[in-house]
Every structure is written in C-alpha cells, then in structure tokens.
C-alpha cells in the first residue's frame, strides 16, 4: 500500500544487489534508526531503557550470532550462553589487566577470544551432525560453565566469585559501572549492535553467506563445487561466537554490571535459541523479532496484572510466564514454522501488491 515501486528500476548490479533495494524500505529503516538514536534517549524513561531496550538489544545481538551458526549454516548449538560467558570473562580479565585501554576495545577483543573458543568447540562439527552436534555443544556449555564457577583466576580470586564491573570512561563520559547513566550505556550498546547487525547482513548477502547456506542446504553438493566444509563450518563458529561473545561482554559491562557463572547457564542458551526459532532461522531481522517476543513478552506479562489492578505474587507470575512462554513457542511453531521473519515477509509482499491479492 505504501510501496511505489514503479520507476525504481536498477541500472547497475550494485543497485540491484543492494540489501534494501526498495526506496520505501530504506525510508522505513531510517525512521527506525531515528527513533532508536534520538526519540528513545530523549523521551525514554529508566524502565524503558534499562529494563527493556538495553537487554533487548544485547540479546538480539546474541541471537544474530547464533542465527549465523544455526540459521545460516545449519549447525544447531546449545552452548550460546557459555560463549557469552567467555566474552564476559575475557573482557573482565583484559579490562582488569589493562585498565587504561578503552573498554570498547576490550569488548571487541573479547569477541575474538570467544571466537577462538568457539572454533575449538566447533572442530567436532566436521564429523558430527544434527542432534549429535547439538549435544556436543552442550559439552561446551557445561565445561565452560564449570570453568567460570571453579577457576578463581577468572574472577581474579575475589571471594564473591562474581565479576564486578568497575567504572570506565569513554571520551571522559562514564560508560560502564554504577556511575554510567542508562542513556549513555544505551547509546553505546545501540551503536555496537547497529554496526554489527549491518556487518552481519553484509556477510550473509555475500560470498560467505552463500557458502554457509550451501553447507546448510546440501553439504555434499557444496563440497563438490569446491567449498571446504571444515573451513566453512569453523568460520561460522568463529563469527557466530564473536557476535555472541561481544553480546556477553556487553551484557555484563553495559547491562548487569556484575555477574556470576549462573548468569551464563544453559537457560540463557535456550532463551537465545528460542529467539531465533521464533524470530526466524536464517534472518537477521528475525533475531530482533525473536528477542522482542522472548525478552519483552515476559516483562509485559509481569507488568500486565499490575496494570489491570490484579495483585498476584511474583512466584505465581513467574510460573504463569513459564507456561505462557511454552504455549507461545508451540503456537508460533504451528502458526509459522519459519518464524516471524517469514510472517513479516508475507505481510510486506501483501503491501507491495496492494490492492491485489497477488
């Protein structure tokens, strides 16, 4: 309905291969960015920014990372939480070793650390497929979780056994720790997430993305046209873990402020997995949709009774949230196994051909 594609013809391949070839889509994106970068910081309250947006963005990033591995390359992983942990602990160690270095640098570097670990645990993926691989990734999950809990070196031998985030400044503006204002942290997170989402979509639209999808759809054929499976899969593990790691680092440094091993347990892994399944496997935007449902929905559910004036004790609400989440997952899977991203696609298509049905 809003699309006016007549006259939007492509005279170069560059234009034809653009990620947003339709002008109206570009406008839409611009609008969203405008809201995210200007409107929300300007008008958003503590609750919106701290409880909703920051976690939403961080989890979305993790979901993007997992989607690169599971959605695009077809390698099912249940170890996301642990890899986020790797990012977080790496960042903590690096930051405490070299406090003078800019924290953002360390957040990115910790992504590389997590990438290395990811490659290590990705090695079996050459021989192991499907659910077997999924379980193999559980090995990573539990082993790493154990490391976080049992290796005091990781927490600099502090007795709390947790990592606490000191205040760090960026251009004289404090971005981490208790002194940092939510808005600053939000903007930092937003910038990183936006940039990395952009990069991710670049990658999946290019040679590497095709390579991954080829491995996913028909690994034999992929190998016979010259794709080295191990390389492709390890690269997927590396890039994926990088994203997840950065998300983990941000989770502790820009959101929670402190974390124990518990924070990175298997439930976190599952949460991220739900996000990409519900959001849509093999779709960047899907990661954001998924994060919306899985993260924001429970918040909404908790807020709901209060709004309608009911007073239910927290435990009840938690239990209800569990049940509803479970039901929703099933309902979504039945309604659209390809996730919200596909629904989005169909809706968009309908608008493009409006008022015609096809």
């Amino acid at each position, binding site marked *: 309905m809003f699309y006016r594609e007549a006259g939007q013809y492509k005279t170069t391949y560059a234009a034809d291969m653009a990620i947003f070839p339709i002008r109206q889509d570009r406008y839409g994106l611009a609008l969203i960015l405008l809201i995210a970068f200007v409107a929300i910081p300007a008008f958003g309250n503590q609750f919106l920014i701290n409880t909703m947006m920051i976690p939403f963005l961080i989890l979305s990033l993790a979901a993007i990372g997992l989607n690169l591995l599971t959605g695009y390359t077809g390698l*099912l992983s249940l170890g996301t939480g642990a890899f986020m942990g790797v990012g977080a602990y790496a960042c903590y160690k690096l930051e405490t070793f070299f406090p003078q270095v800019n924290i953002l640098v360390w957040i990115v570097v910790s992504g590389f650390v997590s990438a290395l670990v990811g490659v290590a645990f990705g090695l*079996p993926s050459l*021989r*192991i*497929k*499907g*659910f*077997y691989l999924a*379980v*193999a990734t*559980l*090995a990573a999950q*539990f*082993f790493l*979780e*154990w490391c976080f*809990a*049992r*290796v005091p070196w990781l927490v600099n031998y502090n007795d709390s056994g947790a990592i606490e985030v000191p205040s760090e400044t960026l251009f004289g503006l404090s971005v981490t720790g208790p002194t940092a204002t939510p808005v600053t942290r939000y903007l930092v997170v937003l910038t990183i997430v936006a940039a990395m989402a952009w990069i991710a979509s670049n990658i999946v639209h290019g040679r590497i993305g095709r390579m991954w999808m080829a491995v996913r759809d028909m690994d*034999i*054929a992929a190998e016979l046209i010259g794709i080295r499976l191990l390389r492709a899969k390890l690269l997927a593990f590396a890039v994926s873990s990088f994203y997840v790691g950065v998300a983990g680092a941000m989770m502790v440094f820009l959101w929670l402020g402190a974390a124990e091993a518990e924070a990175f347990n*298997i439930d976190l892994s*599952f949460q991220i*997995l*739900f996000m990409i*399944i519900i959001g849509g*496997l093999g779709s960047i935007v899907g990661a954001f949709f998924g994060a919306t449902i899985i993260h924001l929905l429970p918040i909404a559910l908790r807020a709901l009774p209060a709004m309608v004036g009911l007073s239910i004790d927290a*435990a*009840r609400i*938690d*239990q*209800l*949230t*569990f*049940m*509803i*989440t*479970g*039901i*929703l*997952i*099933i309902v979504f*899977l*039945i309604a659209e*196994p390809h996730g919200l991203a596909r629904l989005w696609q169909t809706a968009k298509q309908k608008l493009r051909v409006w008022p015609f049905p096809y």
Partner: protein
Amino acid sequence: MDLLRAIFIDPFAQMIGSPDLLAQTIWEGFVGGVLYALIALGFVLIFKASGVFNFAQGIMMVFAALTLVGLHEKGVPAWVALILTIAVMYALAVGIERLVLRPLVNQPDIILFMATFGITYFLIGLGELVFGGNPKSMITKELFLPGGSIDLHIPGGRVQLQKLDIAAAAVALIMVAGLALFFQKTRIGRALRAVADDHQAALSVGISLNQIWVIVWFTAGVVALATGIFWGARSDVSFALQVVALKALPVLILGGLTSVPGAIVGGLIIGIGEKLGEFYWGPLLGGGIESWLAYIIALAFLLFRPQGLFGEKIIERI
C-alpha cells in the same frame, strides 16, 4: 611432572590400594548409570517412533515425580496417587499428540525439537503452579520401596549397597526387559519398530500413526515416572533435577539415538565413568567435574563413531 603423576599414577595406585572404595564408586556409578539409561530410554522410544528429539523427557520425569508427591501431599493415598499420576501421564501423552505433534506433522526435525522445548517450559510452569516450587521428598515408604542398606564383604573391605539403589537397578532391568519383550512380541511393539523405519509400514500393521504416538509418549511417560521416583528418592523432588536429566543426552549420543541397548550401555559407561572421574581425578581440578565429564566422554566417543555406539552407519549417497 607431579601433575602427570597425579593424573596417570596416583589414581590407579589408589584404586589398587583400596578395592572396596573402587567397588563402592563403581556401584554408585552403576546405579546412576542405570537411571541415566532409563531417562535415555524415554528419549530413544520417542525418537524411534516419531523422530522427535524429545528434550522434555527430563522434565517429564520431574513432572511425574512432582505430581506423585504433590498428590500425596494433598492427602491422596500413595497407590491412588500412583495410579492418578499414570493417568496424568496418559493425558499428557494424548494432549501432546493432539496439540503439538499432529499440527506439526511433516515439519523439519528442528521444529519438533523446538516444540519439545515449549512443552518443557509449559510443564515447569504447570508443575510449580499446581504443586509449588519448593523441593519435596519422595514418598518411598508409602510406595513400599526398601530403605536402609546391606553391607557386602569383599577382599579389602566392604561395599555398602543402598536397598533403594538395588531396587532401582532391579526395576530398571525389569522395565528394559519388559520393553524389549513389548517390542519383540506384541503387535503394537512391532508396529512401533516399523514406524521407526517407515511410516507406511506402520499403517499396514493397522495402527494409526496418531495412536502409536500416544502409546509411545505414554510409555515414555511411565518410564519417566519410574525414573522420577528413584531420582526423587535419592535427592529431593524439584526442577533442579532437570540438570540431572540433561545427563541423559550424552548417554543418548553415546548409545546412538535409536538404540535401546545403546541407551543401557551408554548409561552405564557414563554413570560409572563420571563417578570414577569425579572421585579419582575430580580433586585435581577442584571438583564438580561431574557436570561436564559425561559430555566430554561422549564427545570423545563421537569423534570415533559419529553415529554413536549402536547407531547404524550412514553411507552417504548422491
């Protein structure tokens, strides 16, 4: 040097030094393994018959146990509670078949796998909602499960066997045997096996796929209940148990997703392996290695047999 020694010499010296301890550890592991095997059995049943990788199996165990105890708490006599629980498990099987499996038929495996996550969350919520989240203790006496222990004298000392554990092992073995018979002898059993290879074949046996799924999920539910009772008896009944349940996964891949004997053997290997590991090597690493040792063992196996111990070898054709 000391490290190498600590890893490769001391533990074995210890074992030889005190065989009773070794035997005790192995027994502990054996019992744990049997219970792992039971959970894995539930997985295998369902995976064989409906190709669903049922992540909810562990939760079904906890849920069953919780229902049993919960009902009893509410003043229902134990054996009635037991029957009711079985009924609940049946209802659950039917519900799952109707509301989850049927609408999702012909969807890719990953989707069904995810659906079982949904079931997991649902059951956790439901269980806690109805029976409360606080840990409960299993009603062993009421179920006439033996308490206490017997001492077994062996050269170099004695091994203490909990009667409960013996019972667990016994029940486990009975169930496995029963299932084996069920698969071999009964029409339904044969149908189930048929389904595993080819759905048409199953239909030719004259049982609808839907019925089969109900049966399978119900059977898995009963197995889960049994497992739940014993795990519950050994520790408390609470959703913390699901982590234990996850241990069934390495057992599973070790044994091969589709093999019943694989589940048993895998269970024992994992059970005994992790106990020995924890007891003799754990201290070196500051303990708690149980949580991942199982997976590492499984992983090690997988690298050599990607299809598990008893899984069929896949010849790739194009």
